[in-house]
């Protein structure tokens, strides 16, 4: 059984205190102070209280059910009676896309959010793109460091330092 070094004891204690802080701050301060001009809100909350968000800048995520065009605008249905209106210069998402949008809510009067900007979320490609980074990091780390069970610490791999 290796002796735990004082630095490691302090590191574990500090991490433990931080986790306690995380839990207690979750309980004491559950709400954030928003600085963005866009209010982050779910589409369900907008639909539940449309008057509260009417004419307000909102940021939300939604899944496109269907897309149609009206003049130069694209209209995407996201719920039974909720739509996103995209003006053509900012592009048009496809059916089935999960999108982040920023825009102005007119759900109460027109069942729509006028989209200023949008971004198609693609978690699967994000994870796939992270895999080369994780593999490269592990390879580099193991190239430079070795684990010493006697001291229970990462040490320099012999002969690999410049």
């Amino acid at each position, binding site marked *: 059984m290796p002796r735990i070094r004082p630095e490691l004891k302090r590191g574990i204690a500090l*991490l433990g205190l931080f986790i306690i802080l995380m839990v207690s701050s979750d309980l004491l301060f559950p709400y954030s102070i928003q600085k963005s001009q866009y209010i982050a809100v779910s589409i369900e909350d907008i639909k539940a209280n449309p008057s509260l968000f009417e004419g307000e800048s909102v940021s939300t995520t939604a899944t496109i059910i269907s897309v149609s065009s009206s003049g130069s605008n694209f209209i995407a249905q996201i719920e039974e009676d909720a739509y996103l209106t995209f003006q053509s210069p900012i592009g048009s998402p496809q059916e089935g896309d999960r999108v982040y949008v920023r825009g102005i809510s007119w759900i109460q009067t027109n069942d729509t959010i006028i989209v200023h900007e949008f*971004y198609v979320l693609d978690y699967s490609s994000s994870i796939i793109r992270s895999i080369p980074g994780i593999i490269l*990091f592990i390879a580099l780390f193991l190239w430079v460091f070795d684990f010493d069970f006697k001291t229970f610490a990462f040490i320099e791999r012999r002969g690999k330092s410049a």
Partner: protein
Amino acid sequence: MPDVLTHLLVGASIAIVYRRNGPRIEQMLIILGAVLIDIERPFSWLLAGTSLEWISLGQAFHSILGAVVLAYFAAACFQINGLDFNSVFKLILIGCISHLLLDMVMYPWAEYGLYLLYPLQLALSFNLLWPDLWWYPILGVTLLLLSLFMSHLLKIYHGS
């Protein structure tokens, strides 16, 4: 937030410029810091899978206090000849700060929370780009090539 590869490439760029003549071990500690902040992701994914999603985990680690705690803990896991604890801590922390700065570029974080001053839940961001764009790794590679070029120029200038 950008992917792991982009964070790694940016960390490597900083390491090449900041520790140009330093040993590989010091450069690797900066790279470690650059990816360390996202160590909560596997835990967050696991928690999400059990419907115990704990958003605070990501928010707390993506803060100055979180970076200091993680860098301290990580530094405590190393025992390197010729490098004292403070030097290891400093190098890892530099990488962590690069991670936070890169994440601050993206604006949805401001709405959902990059709480730099955690536990104060005040969202801060440069509000420039969407997260996770496919070309972020290309930006990382460009930065790496620029840093290699800069390092080469500095070598010629200093004659070392």
